[in-house]
């Protein structure tokens, strides 16, 4: 019997085929169906969808009292979520990359919140923010700082920030681990060579460490952007989008429209808008950040 033989490059396609099939079935096809649904009118219960043209987009963009606030919240959250937790993670990674006593335990401690389910994080923080019995307001009272007491989750000026603090607490460990992995792959030979040439700590960091971390940075930033744009669980668990929809986010608004209000067309339209925003941010960044690596071949 003749042996089945493929050229090595063709073997790659064969090995990828099952994963591509699963991706097509559970990710790509639903995406296409969502785009199609955004041009339809469907309540999720009827057997048929009727064509609605651009009605859903028109309704979302011109007659939805919540959409633009949700868009502002989503963009603001994304910008802050890309900057703040990652700055903290990077600092922690730099610190925990040093030979410190107990650094393994510290790494575990900072990573632990990542493995807690977001809805559990939401419940923990919601109780800590309880205006009457919660940890924060009781601590402020004990420290005679009653003037600092606010309705953390009920005042629109503070609610989104309060939820964001919980998000930072939970997400810092994940990026920290990625940065740590990146730092450990920085060539020690290059660092030693730079020091021998007289480079100080800041010069070594700027000209050796940071460039070596570029692929890691790209991964961390892309993941941060994508995860921020689809922020849902923690907001759902802590505020439900309130008070008065002031903490509403696009991902949650899409869910609300479809699964709670039964307007799948509008929910799909919000999802498509969110997808376009994601692509506009992520694709150019990826092309820019990976270009020098390709030209170096």
């Amino acid at each position, binding site marked *: 019997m003749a042996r089945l033989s493929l050229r090595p490059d063709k073997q790659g396609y064969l090995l990828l085929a099952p994963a591509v099939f699963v991706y097509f079935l559970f990710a790509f096809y639903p995406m296409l169906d969502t785009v199609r649904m955004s041009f339809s009118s469907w*309540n*999720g*219960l*009827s*057997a048929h969808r009727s064509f609605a043209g651009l*009605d859903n987009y028109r*309704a979302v963009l011109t*007659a939805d*009292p*919540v959409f633009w606030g949700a868009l502002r919240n989503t963009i603001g959250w994304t910008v802050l979520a890309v900057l703040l937790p990652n700055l903290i993670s990077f600092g922690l990674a730099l610190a925990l990359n040093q030979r410190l006593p107990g650094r393994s335990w510290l790494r575990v401690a900072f990573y632990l919140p990542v493995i807690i389910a977001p809805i559990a994080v939401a419940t923990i923080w919601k109780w800590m*923010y*309880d*205006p*009457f*019995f919660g940890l924060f307001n009781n601590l402020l009272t004990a420290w005679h700082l009653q003037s600092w007491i*606010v*309705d*953390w*989750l*009920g*005042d*629109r000026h503070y*609610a989104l920030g309060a939820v964001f603090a919980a998000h930072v607490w939970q997400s810092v460990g994940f990026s920290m681990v990625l940065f740590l992995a990146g730092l450990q792959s920085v060539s020690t030979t290059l660092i030693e060579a730079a020091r021998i040439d007289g480079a100080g700590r800041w010069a070594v960091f700027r000209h050796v460490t940071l460039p070596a971390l570029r692929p890691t940075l790209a991964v961390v930033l892309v993941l941060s952007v994508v995860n921020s744009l689809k922020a849902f669980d923690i907001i759902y668990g802590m*505020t*439900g989008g*309130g*008070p*008065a*929809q*002031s903490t509403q986010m696009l991902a949650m608004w899409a869910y*609300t429209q479809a*699964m*709670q*209000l*039964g*307007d799948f067309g509008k929910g799909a339209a919000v999802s498509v808008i969110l997808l376009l925003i994601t692509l506009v941010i992520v694709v150019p960044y990826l092309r820019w950040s990976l270009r020098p690596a390709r030209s170096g071949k």
Partner: protein
Amino acid sequence: MRFKQVVNRALSALVLSTVVGGAVAASAQDLKIWTLTFDSDEVYSAWTEIIKAFEAANPGVKVDLVRRSTDEHKAALRVAARSDQGPDVFFMWAGQGLGGEFVKAGLSKPLDEYYKKYGWDSRLTRTSLAPSKIYPGGRHGVPYTFHGQALYYNKALFAKAGISAPPATYEELKADAAKLKAAGIPAFTFGGSVNWHLMRLMDNLLETKCGAEKHDALKAMKANWGTDPAVTESFRELHTWTANYVLTPFLGIDQAQSFNLFMANRAAMMLEGDWLVNQLREQKRLNDFAIAPFPTGTNRLYSFAEYYYVSKQSKVPDLAARFLDYLQSDAVQQKYVGILGSMSVNTHVKYSNSDPLEDKWREIFAKYNQTFVNGDQGFPLDVTTEYFRIINGVAGNTIAPESAGKTLQAFINNRK
């Protein structure tokens, strides 16, 4: 050769077990019931016993009860709507806004033949039956419970404020709130993060300021929210209450946190339903509280019904109807009186050895012939969401009371 024999025998065993298993499954009757998580352990125990007894009385029947939180229950029903994996019987509140959505989508089986067969019209209360008749083409759903909502007040806090009797008019209610405030006691506690909690106050204010007929027209979206001065007055009253007489902060807490505050005697009143009696019983605080209807002046009780609907896709509709008949039977309703609801929907139930709060609820139910329903059951879902946003906006000072009605009307006008 030996390997081939082993494989062939294994395959034959697999096919045989599938056929036999399938035959066994086909002969047993399964009844799938989807409902919400229950308010108390008492209710869960009651349901467990009811199901066991029904199965014992119907050999070969297995009842599978699935409980979910509210949002998950609605989502599961949508996902199952077009499949054969859905329930035979499902819980949903009555009214156009909630149960009506499923009826309009053709997912509820009309039950006229079972109403005739089991005589539900002569067994169940008139008020609870009313929502089954609102749909063209047949009767949908069977009443499960009928709930009223009223003012629960802390007797000790009322006494501390010098209030000797519950308010009989809206002016008295406001005067009592002022007395409570003077005594350093917030009149109400609400969980603002669950929008329907504060909505109850708004609904009662609309009933008070607009009157019954206009209120119904507004909720049916046949009257104009933007131009009626009584609507603006209602939203102004809401703002007055939330700014002066509700325990703050409240917009960031839910109804469970609000109840904890009520138990901690941090506020004098809650606007809650008859189910609270069970919760107070579990807290052993029945003697500390009393009940009075919200004094709207219209002689209508603020109430809603909970229903069980038979799915149009059910393969066992007769069994489903039989279970619902059993659930509402004289024997079951008498045995679990006060547990499934303060007042049974079965008119044959006799009440004895009940708590004063349950007696008070029965007095309230007997007094009122007419009802008005919660806003989130009367409105379509998208209008409810906007109604919630505006109520919270007025309470949170982000929407002026004068523009609240116009904002809601603009949303209604933009709907297709």
